[in-house]
């Protein structure tokens, strides 16, 4: 006789709250009048994120591997990653709330009469909010999933909304739609790799769960070619999501094309979720075959760091620069993955925070610098921004300095802890590459700072719009976190080191 599966609702509540709110958002979209919709959607989304956050805090000391019939593991690291994703998503939602960035009707052809009439009618659609919530739910599930099927479902749940959201930009519609299509095609391609890898791993171990695969490695009678191909294909899917070289090609195009609030959200949260999953898979599932995968992930880490830093130097578009910068940072986080230690895990999680908030802050500021046709992303036209708007320029510089890893910013502690963990694990070469790349990367971050403050002001049409109150709050949060964690990292780090562990 079949018995109903036992679910531990308290532990699953955070994800369920977000999913519930997303469904509610769909209903709002269908039944509530246009005038109320936007505000209601913002309210629902923010409240859901806060509620999920509070619920996570309440259950933070609980651990369980059977919360959902063995397909998810609730443990310290998982809860921490979920908290980080929610905190970043909260800031991301504050930007998304500025619906001016999104097209009135996704189906309308840019410049067409349909578009003009839908704008005239004020039929601004707000489906971006439920889409964001669905993506957040997927992101929360991804790093706690412990079997390959759940992992795949989570990957798709987080990816599909992002494809759509990338195409929603109000200005430069063609670029945005092209980005969405590219992201979708390549994302589907990488998902296929992921699925193929899952199949190989099942073929190798006869099990879909990470623990089962680990056990299969122990018994080691099976064909290890299956295992290795499985690991590689699975990694390709994950490396695509985090934007590691050579699976990064979509990153600059999509970051540039997507509406900037979405880019910020995607850059910060997706990276945390995908790296969270990657950490669990490698730490729990593949720990015993580390000598097989460590060299390739190390090589990818080095290529990613170096390529990202060098390519960023030649960019003249601020969003593309930030995209390559995010590629470099993916390389740094990979160093923490390869460290394969408790400190490596803590360092990676800290890096999510420092990188995530600085990224959100930087993209938030990109939304403010505009001319009559929308955001100005040509870096040359940012020259002399410091004279027009010292506060905005200072904040942007702070984020650049944090990216560059200048002490007293969170970015420094992030880099330093990653290097420390790597040093302890004996990967001295990676530390050396990391330090050298940091120096190269610092060059272009600093160049931007110099240009903003010292460059001739070249663009008369450039204006820095007065941010909405939500955007202001969002950027302030990013500034505060970046400075606070730079000056007083123990605030988070100590608890990271005690809490962040994976259940096996």
């Amino acid at each position, binding site marked *: 006789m079949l018995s109903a599966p036992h679910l531990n609702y308290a532990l699953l509540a955070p994800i369920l709250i977000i999913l519930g709110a997303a469904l509610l958002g769909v209903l709002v979209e269908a039944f509530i009048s246009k005038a109320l919709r936007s505000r209601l959607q913002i309210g629902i989304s923010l409240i859901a994120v806060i509620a999920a956050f509070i619920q996570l805090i309440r259950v933070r000391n609980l651990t369980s591997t059977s919360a959902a019939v063995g397909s998810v593991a609730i443990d310290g690291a998982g809860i921490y990653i979920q908290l980080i994703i929610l905190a970043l998503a909260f800031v991301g939602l504050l930007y998304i709330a500025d619906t001016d960035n999104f097209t009135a009707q996704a189906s309308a052809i840019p410049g067409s009469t349909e578009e003009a009439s839908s704008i005239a009618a004020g039929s601004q659609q707000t489906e971006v909010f439920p889409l964001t919530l669905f993506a957040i739910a997927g992101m929360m599930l991804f790093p706690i999933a412990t079997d390959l099927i759940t992992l795949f479902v989570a990957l798709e749940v987080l990816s599909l909304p992002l494809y759509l959201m990338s195409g929603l930009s109000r200005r430069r519609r063609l*670029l945005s739609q092209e980005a969405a299509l590219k992201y979708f095609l390549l994302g589907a391609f990488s998902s296929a790799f992921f699925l193929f890898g899952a199949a190989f791993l099942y073929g190798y171990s006869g099990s879909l769960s990470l623990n089962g695969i680990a056990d299969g490695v122990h018994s080691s009678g099976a064909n290890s070619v299956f295992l290795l191909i499985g690991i590689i294909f699975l990694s*390709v899917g994950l490396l695509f999501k985090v934007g590691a070289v050579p699976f990064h090609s979509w990153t600059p195009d999509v970051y540039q094309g997507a509406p900037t609030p979405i880019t910020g959200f995607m850059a910060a949260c997706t990276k945390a979720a995908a790296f969270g999953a990657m950490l669990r898979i490698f730490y729990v599932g593949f720990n015993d075959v580390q000598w097989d995968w460590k060299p390739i992930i190390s*090589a990818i880490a080095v290529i990613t760091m170096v390529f990202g830093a060098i390519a960023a130097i030649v960019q003249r578009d601020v969003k593309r620069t930030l995209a390559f910068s995010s590629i470099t940072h993916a390389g740094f986080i990979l160093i923490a993955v390869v460290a394969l230690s408790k400190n490596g895990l803590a360092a990676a999680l800290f890096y999510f925070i420092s990188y995530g908030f600085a990224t959100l802050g930087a993209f938030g500021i990109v939304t403010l610098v505009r001319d009559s046709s929308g955001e100005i992303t040509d870096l040359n036209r940012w020259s002399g921004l410091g004279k027009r708007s010292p506060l905005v320029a200072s904040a942007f510089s702070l984020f650049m300095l944090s990216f560059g890893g200048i002490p007293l910013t969170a970015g420094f502690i992030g880099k330093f802890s990653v290097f420390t963990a790597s040093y302890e694990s004996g990967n001295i070469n990676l530390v050396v590459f990391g330090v050298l790349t940091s120096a190269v990367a610092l060059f272009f971050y600093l160049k931007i700072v110099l240009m903003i403050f010292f460059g001739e002001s070249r663009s008369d049409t450039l204006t820095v719009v007065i941010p909405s109150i939500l955007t202001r709050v969002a950027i302030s949060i990013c500034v505060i976190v970046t400075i606070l964690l730079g000056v007083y990292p123990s605030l988070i780090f100590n608890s990271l080191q005690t809490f962040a562990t994976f259940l096996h």
Partner: protein
Amino acid sequence: MKANNYLVYLIALPLFSAALLLLLGRIADKWGHLLATLVSASTFAIGAYEFFAMRSRSGVDRAITQHVIQWISVGTLKVDGALLLDQLSICFVLLITGVGTLIHIYSISYMEHDENRRRFFAYLNLFIAAMLLLVLADSYLSLYVGWEGVGLASYLLIGFWNQRPAYATAAKKAFVANRVGDVGLSLAIIIAFTQFGTVSFAGVKAGAPHASSAALTAIGAMLLLAAAGKSAQFPLQSWLGDAMAGPTPVSALIHAATMVTAGVYLITRSNFIFDASSTARLLVVIVGAITLLFGAIIGTAKDDIKKALAASTMSQIGYMILATGLGPIGYAFAILHLLTHGFFKAGMFLGAGSVMHGMDDEVNMRRYGGLAKFMPITAITFGFGYLAILGIPPFAGFYSKDKIIETAFNAGGNKGWILGGAALLGAAITAFYMTRVVVLTFIGAKRWDSMAHPHESPLLMWLPMAILAIGSVTSGFLLSSGSALVHWLQPIVNAGNVEGGKELMKPLTVSLLALGVVVIGAGAAIIKYRTVASEAPSNISIFTKAARKDLYQDSFNEAVLMRPGQGLTDTLVKTDHNLIDGAVRGVGWTLNTISSAARSIQNGYVRSYALIMVLGTLALVATVWLVTL
């Protein structure tokens, strides 16, 4: 090392007072300056107490520490927020709190009519706290916090009158030049960590003998870059002249006596790095020698009294940096000159402030003349500083500067002749431009218009000047009699182990030579500036023109720091097809050669992106196959 519980108050008191004054706002306007001055004086009292306590101890017991908080605990990287007071830091503590207190007192009167006086004093206290943290830090990372703190305070104080756009720009310039230096410091810290696994002074010192010379040179070069940024040394010197936009007491405290000497402190503190790397030492002496001449030459052409003094500061710090590159004994002489310079330069800056105070904030020396009659105390105290910087015995500079010139000559070989010659030439130019300042300001015919009513400054202003003037006379003798300072610093800098280099010149010869060139320089200035026009002449030689333009340092910065970056970007960017171009053109792009794929790897085509992914995956499979083979 002994533990001690008072050190933290040195930093906490001024920090607390600064916070209080900023938070209370206008309520504190009436008494804010008094509180700030009192706090500054009490830090001096603590410093003096610690100094005498330290003197009564002997040997290794002299250095004391206080553990405050555990600041960072990341894996093996444990950085304790601990303070370290040893023979080197106590020198700075006394200088910072002593000169700092005098300048607080001076500012009470100087800033009397400024409606933001309370805020000014809050910033001054903030500066004192940050500077004390800088010199009391026991690790590079804590030092970095103080380093940033003094940068912040300096930025706030330079831009204190930021309603004037030129001043705000000057503040930004200082800000950016300092960030470049900060990059050097952070890289030095990171390299040190990768080498030694720790960033504390003690840990790095212990590890330095075992490190590779390449690493030590890299750390040394990066530390030098940091020092150049903070101490306005070549090639990051350009901000100091513009920083004179700040109120004059700030120029005296931060941009003459204390903060700008932080670079000298950093190098002296890191002596174990520089001792182990001759390349790094060579870089240091080159930077020092260039800057000391550079600053002196700029000083000869400045009509703005504060900018002339700023150029002089740059040049004098060049002497100190030069000394730090000359080996163990050089560190002690660098600190000696740093201390005497702290007295005489701060005194002269306050004198300049006093002149400006009496002349309705006029800074152009061509509009002064004959002021000695109207402000005798200012003229005498300034005169003492003048004699000290020239190195006339028995004034302070004689003891400190001649030692540096002598050590430079004794570096041996061609190096000795070049460095000694540069230092000697610098002394001659110094005599020229300082005499020019004195002649233009205090002697000769009056050139101010009839509206000005020059008058002596009030007691609160001339008293600090007088005290500093006494220091300008006595400090050199007191610190060097019986090599007092050299012995005092011996445990830190190992000055006892002087390399047995051939003595190129006897001290007496050096002193006579120095005196000779000083007399020539001063005489030339007296002859040239007996009469002077109140407008700057325009039919000037190319050298004067260059010096007036700060030897084209801004053009240099633009050419070296900004243009190559932009040029590189412009050329490279053409190879990067961007998304729209690629899509709109839509011409048949075929995947026939991998090389063209590599060239325009980011071409905007989904199919080529997918191909890259496939190739990447294949490469991974191949790698694993090779690794596990």
